[in-house]
């Protein structure tokens, strides 16, 4: 394991931000700490980096107890949400900073920095100051700066949070590719489930200072441990007191085993997919109706000839992952 976090607790004043958090991060993995804002994920990242000291618990980096180590001696690279670019230094000097602190010989520094700038596609910008860079470029500079000292683990706090949507998407793919090239154990914080699923090979869902679930993105998506995780990872709807994904709803014109009667209220075509909204009547509760919706391909919606007012029967599909609604 590259990072082992054991029963970490952390409070700021009265507010408990981390409660008995234990997380393992495998060597060479790309792990996402996913959760709503205020869930404790940034604090956990800062605890790993040594920028916060936990009230109790242990942090092991590469098997060594690092709980009491200052950030300088942890061998971590940290990329800050707002990049924390050294404003009075050029891009080159920013990236060279950690190596200079380590008193590496000048030619070695130059070689390493040039390598890294090439890796992050900033070789043309070495002489510029951070103020002369775009957000995405500053982000890549911060990344190169963190990588320059060959950290054992790379930590990124909301790495794409301050960028606009287009650049975000590009950098996401790029980070994944970079990780495949560099293979440094990487942990990043995000509140965007799509980002986590797309980039990470392990996701740790953190909310209210507690680890809700950890695992591979597909696992968590398909087998959420709680209604919270299910809701947080993707769209959900409710049928028969259970939460499920809208694409796991089966609609038929005839009643069958486990179906519930429903009336379609609206059909929305969104390109390839079609969104069918309906009111479900739960058996045993006469007069009780609640809204739900299904996601299907345009083709299957056509086969159903669904339109507002049509009486149908709905049920979860056989392989659907469901959790109790409350």
């Amino acid at each position, binding site marked *: 394991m590259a990072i082992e976090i054991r029963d970490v607790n952390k409070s*700021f004043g009265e507010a408990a931000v981390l409660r008995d958090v234990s997380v393992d991060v495998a060597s060479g993995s790309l792990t996402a700490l996913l959760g709503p804002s205020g869930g404790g994920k940034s604090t956990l990242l800062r605890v790993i980096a*040594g*920028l916060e*000291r936990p009230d109790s618990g242990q942090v092991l980096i590469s098997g060594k107890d690092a709980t*009491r180590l200052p*950030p300088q001696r942890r061998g971590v690279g940290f990329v800050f949400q707002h990049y924390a670019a050294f404003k009075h230094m050029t891009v080159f000097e920013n990236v060279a900073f950690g190596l200079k602190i380590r008193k590496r010989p000048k030619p070695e520094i130059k070689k390493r920095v040039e390598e890294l700038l090439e890796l992050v596609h900033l070789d043309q910008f070495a002489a510029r100051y951070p103020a002369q860079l775009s957000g995405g470029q500053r982000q890549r500079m911060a990344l190169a700066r963190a990588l320059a000292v060959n950290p054992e683990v790379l930590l990124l706090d909301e790495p794409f949070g301050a960028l606009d949507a287009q650049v975000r998407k590009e950098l996401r793919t790029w980070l994944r590719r970079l990780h495949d090239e560099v293979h440094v154990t990487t942990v990043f914080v995000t509140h965007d489930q799509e980002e986590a699923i797309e980039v990470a090979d392990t996701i740790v869902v953190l909310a209210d200072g507690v680890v809700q679930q950890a695992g591979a993105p597909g696992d968590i998506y398909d087998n959420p441990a709680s209604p919270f995780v299910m809701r947080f990872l993707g769209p959900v709807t409710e049928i028969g007191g259970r939460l499920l994904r809208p694409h796991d709803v089966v609609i038929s014109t005839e009643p069958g085993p486990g179906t519930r009667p429903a009336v379609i209220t609206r059909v929305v075509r969104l390109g390839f997919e079609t969104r069918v909204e309906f009111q479900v009547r739960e058996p045993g509760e006469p007069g009780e109706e609640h809204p739900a919706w299904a996601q299907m391909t345009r083709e299957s919606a056509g086969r159903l000839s669904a339109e507002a007012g049509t009486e149908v029967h709905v049920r979860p599909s056989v392989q659907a992952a469901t959790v109790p609604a409350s």
Partner: protein
Amino acid sequence: MSETTKSTTATLDEKVATAGPDSPPGGKGRSVRPVGLGGGAGGAGGTAIGVGIATIFLSAVVLIPLAAVIWKGASQGPGGFWDAITTPDAWAALKLTVIASLVVALVNLVMGTLIAWVLVRDSFPGKGLLDLLIDLPFALPTIVAGLVLLTLYGTDSPLGVSLAYTRTGVVVALLFVTLPFVVRTVQPVLLELDKDMEQAAASLGAGNWTIFRRIILPNLVPAMLAGTALAFTRAVAEFGSTVLISGNVPFKTQVAAVHIFGQIESDNTAAAAATSTALLVLSLLVLLTIDLMRRWGARRG
């Protein structure tokens, strides 16, 4: 108003209203952590050493000496203190100081606001230079300020106006050294004042005077009062600029600071300490008022 106090200009000699450290650092809502000298999460020791050094330094230079003044001033008990500040000459000096400072504060309130207004809203050749000159009284050593005024308003005044050894002369000297306070607190507020508000008022039919009274003035009042109070404390404490022009005539032109100086010179430190304590208390009361006003202003804006 919190913005105002922050952008208020620091000037030579005195720093006008400052953004206290109790305002959130960086405005980013981050918690304060030990970094820098402390070094990372293990900086508690660094903090303790730093606080220790700062406390010792501050105690040696400021705290213990000022405490000694109050201690000495109060050493004869409340009765003795009262007797010391109500001797005819001490009392006259204190009375002159307070009255002259009040006059100076009021003139500054009006003229300072007017100057700030002209500097922000008017334009004429040489305005930039004038703006620069406003800070000169802070930069100029007070004894030089006194000498400068005595040259123009002394016994051989080229204007034929001799204010030497008169109370008016004292007031003029105090006006000179306190000139920047109100100007420099009001000016930034006026600069940041949203012109849209005035235009909105005008579109609603308000005339110029109404706009000034109802829209502009209420926004300026906190800064005007803060600047005036600072000018008052400075006037109360002033020494150097009044030495030459006042001629140091007891019962007539001797201000409190000059009176204290005389007592020190004649080795009467107990009397000097009593009058000093009176001045200190007066200044602290005014500073406290400014602080309360600033909080009140911050709450409003």
